[in-house]
């Protein structure tokens, strides 16, 4: 007796299928089921897993949440007045005004100042150096000085440190103006943020267009151009002048960015423009006129010779041009045909640098006994003074509009007032945080949409770091800690840039969907069709088995 049932002896029918087909059908169905299980249940997920692109999970929700968070700068303003009620009144007036500010949240604290300290001060400078002037970065002290008229005719005097001295009869409106326009510069910040977030709708203001873009390091290149060294001899100690004048100023800015100062001399490089000769007139000597329209044409050919592109840092160029006696004195004329007043023959190009025209002294030029090459001395205070003024504008310290009866103390040797430095910190913090936020949003949109780009660990780490740094920066701004907030914003900016410009984000490992289908369908569709079609038969067989069992039970 064979163990397996004979196929021809017992003929049973279940449903439509005769017995012998039922046995073979069982095996056939088992085979079809095994194909189905291997190909679709095991194979499909296995294929999916093995062709998965390596993607590190990214904090999409946190990046989207950054859009909602607003950057609020918290500052503490202390009002020190003789009469505490007057102080409280001023504080409430100022508070009412600054309540409407979108970027600033100002806390006002009122204290009473000792009359003896103010009476004993001989000058404002003495007050500046006294112990009352230690303030944290970003904070301001409004100090009422009853004897202010003996020092200055203005009602409000802004010091070099973070103190504003005001006379007793100053109104709160004037103090509001001083805080809003000079110390906080909220409009500049607002313009900058809106020009970054929606560049088609708003543009930077003049100060913003001059300000160098944010970077971690800058090059400062000082060049002296001598077009005719056979006629003019310059024995200048450029390095010492830079060390004396520029370096103290740049040391102020050391926490903000690295400034690498380089210097060079260029010979036989002429101006590629033709100045007009203005002949001798009563009261005016013969001189050469360089009109305002010709000035850009000086910069263009000079740029090729300056070699300012050897490094990747943005470069600030400062050029001194010394014309020979035959082409001097060379004066710059405004567009209206008027000579430039102020005795400074210089012009500035936003985000590039400045050029000074240093004419050799007329007495040396006229003196025929001096043999060529004629030695020309450098007027360093004028040259370096102009460079410093231009450098301040390029670095981002704007020229402030005048407010009537308000003045500032003149600059010290360091060239920067502390509250100007605070403003610069604020601008850079907002710029870097906004830039990091926009970069992260753009990156998350790109990586979210194209699901096939590889996101490796480096990019993932950079993005995580950037998001954390932005959140930390916002938190520190809320606490009013400007220096730490700057560090966080710098970290955020650099990490976001590193993530965005990572070369692996362009790896052409991904294929568009239509190419993917075009490759897979001819390979797998002929195999899958019978498997999928056999699903119908499996279903019918299973249904018949169930019914068969059901019938047996009933029977």
């Amino acid at each position: 007796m064979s163990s397996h049932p004979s196929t021809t002896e017992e003929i049973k029918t279940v449903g439509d299928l005769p017995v012998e087909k039922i046995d073979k059908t069982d095996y056939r169905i088992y085979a079809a089921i095994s194909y189905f299980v291997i190909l679709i249940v095991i194979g499909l997920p296995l294929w999916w897993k093995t062709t998965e692109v390596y993607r590190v999970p990214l904090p999409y929700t946190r990046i989207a949440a950054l859009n909602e968070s607003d950057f609020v700068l918290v500052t503490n303003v202390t009002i020190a007045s003789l009469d505490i009620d007057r102080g409280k009144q001023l504080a409430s007036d100022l508070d009412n005004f600054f309540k409407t500010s979108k970027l600033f949240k100002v806390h006002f604290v009122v204290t009473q100042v000792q009359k003896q300290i103010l009476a004993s001060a001989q000058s404002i400078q003495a007050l500046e150096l006294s112990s009352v002037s230690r303030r944290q970065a970003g904070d301001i002290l409004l100090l009422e000085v009853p004897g202010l008229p003996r020092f200055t005719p203005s009602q409000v005097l802004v010091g070099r440190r973070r103190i504003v001295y005001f006379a007793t009869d100053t109104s709160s409106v004037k103090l509001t103006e001083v805080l809003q326009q000079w110390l906080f510069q909220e409009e500049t910040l607002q313009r900058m943020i809106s020009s970054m977030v929606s560049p088609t709708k708003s543009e930077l203001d003049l100060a913003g267009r001059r300000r160098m873009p944010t970077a971690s390091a800058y090059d400062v290149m000082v060049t002296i151009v001598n077009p005719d060294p056979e006629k003019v001899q310059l024995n200048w100690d450029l390095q010492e002048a830079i060390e004396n004048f520029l370096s103290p100023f740049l040391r102020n800015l050391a926490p903000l960015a690295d400034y690498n100062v380089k210097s060079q001399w260029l010979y036989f490089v002429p101006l590629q423009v033709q100045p007009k000769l203005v002949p001798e007139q009563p009261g005016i000597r013969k001189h050469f006129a360089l009109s305002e329209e010709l000035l850009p044409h000086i910069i263009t050919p000079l740029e090729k010779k300056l070699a300012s592109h050897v490094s990747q840092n943005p470069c600030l160029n400062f050029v001194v041009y010394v014309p020979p006696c035959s082409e001097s004195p060379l004066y710059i004329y405004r567009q209206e045909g008027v000579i430039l007043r102020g005795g400074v023959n210089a012009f500035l190009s936003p985000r590039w640098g400045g050029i000074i025209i240093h004419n050799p002294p007329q007495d040396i030029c006229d003196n025929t006994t001096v043999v060529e090459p004629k030695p020309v001395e450098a007027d360093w205070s004028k040259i370096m003074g102009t460079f410093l003024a231009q450098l301040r504008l390029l670095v981002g310290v704007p020229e402030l509009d005048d407010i009537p009866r308000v003045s500032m103390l003149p600059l010290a040797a360091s060239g920067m007032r502390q509250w100007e430095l605070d403003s610069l910190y604020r601008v850079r913090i907002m710029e870097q945080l906004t830039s990091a936020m926009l970069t992260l949003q753009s990156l998350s949109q790109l990586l979210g949409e194209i699901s096939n780009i590889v996101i490796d660990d480096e990019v993932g780490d950079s993005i995580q770091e950037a998001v954390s740094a932005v959140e930390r920066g916002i938190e520190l701004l809320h606490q009013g800690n400007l220096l730490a907030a700057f560090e966080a914003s710098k970290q955020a900016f650099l990490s976001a840039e590193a993530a965005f410009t990572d070369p692996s984000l362009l790896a052409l490992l991904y294929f568009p969907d239509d190419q993917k289908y075009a490759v897979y369908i001819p390979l797998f569709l002929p195999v899958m069709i019978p498997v999928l079609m056999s699903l119908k038969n499996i279903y019918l067989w299973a249904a018949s088995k169930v019914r068969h069992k059901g019938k047996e039970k009933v029977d």
Partner: protein
Amino acid sequence: MRALLFFVTIFYVNEYVQAVRQIPDDILRGNHTNNWAVLVDTSRFWFNYRHVANVLSIYRSVKRLGIPDSQIILMVADDMACNPRNPRPATVFNHRKQHINVYGDDVEVDYRGYEVTVENFVRLLTGRLFPGTPRSKQLLTDEGSNILVYLTGHGGDGFLKFQDSEEVTSQELADALEQMWQKRRYHEIFFMIDTCQAASMYEKFYSPNILAVASSLVGEDSLSHHVDPAIGVYIIDRYTFHALHFLERVSPDSMKTMGEFLAVCPKQECISTVGVRRDLFPRDPHKVPITDFFGSLRPVELGINYLNVSIALPLTENTIRPVKQEEKYHYAQQFPTHLFQTRAT
């Protein structure tokens, strides 16, 4: 005699009058701060001589109008000048009369030979270059940069062929420009393309501030201008020939506008129709000076007062400066016995 006196007077008066060229009020210089150019020739081999001549001619014009080499990215296969078939080695001409050698002595090619690939082009535009890429191969633009992008080669409907082996599609190009916009890497772009069916390449653009001009519309071929019988190949394309003819008459202080440039090469000269896309560009091209894209004129400000820095200068006597040692030279010993000296015991 009187006429002579009259003319002489006029001559002297003219010399003394300050010839300040007034900018008409309606031509406003844009708010950009610097200018860059990206010039790409996407084809190689001897029979594509005209594409190399195209791009080198535009390079010459742009350089002449002031953009420095450090701000021009030139991508050319560079196999013409030293090709064994070139009867005048180290030269490339764009006219059969050989007026100008557009290759010259000072051409600076940034991407040459097999480096001109789609990947490098897209990496250049989006800024995703490998660390260690030399600065001359990077596009270091910022939000104040106006960029001129010029592409030439063989193209089709929606794609541009790179070096006979790969293609860049119009969607990829549009996405690359959008990535540039997201990072604020340009202020305005002027996109010029001289290939067959060139208009298809700018149809997919969706980023703002782009003005695009193409030498032919979809379905049309761009034709070449004339053949040089000495070489045996076509040496310049029609659209670029007429564009150059226009640019040759532009000087750095010219008042010509982009509107005039867009109208260069009418249909009877070019045979193909020049296509322009201006809906993404907010300004009126007739009010945009041509030097906004082709030249490099930096904005200038006057009236900066100088700081009085003579107060409280740090005195140089107080700073200790390292004394420079004078270098003393001496002859090296012929036989270095001092190396073998042992201490006398």
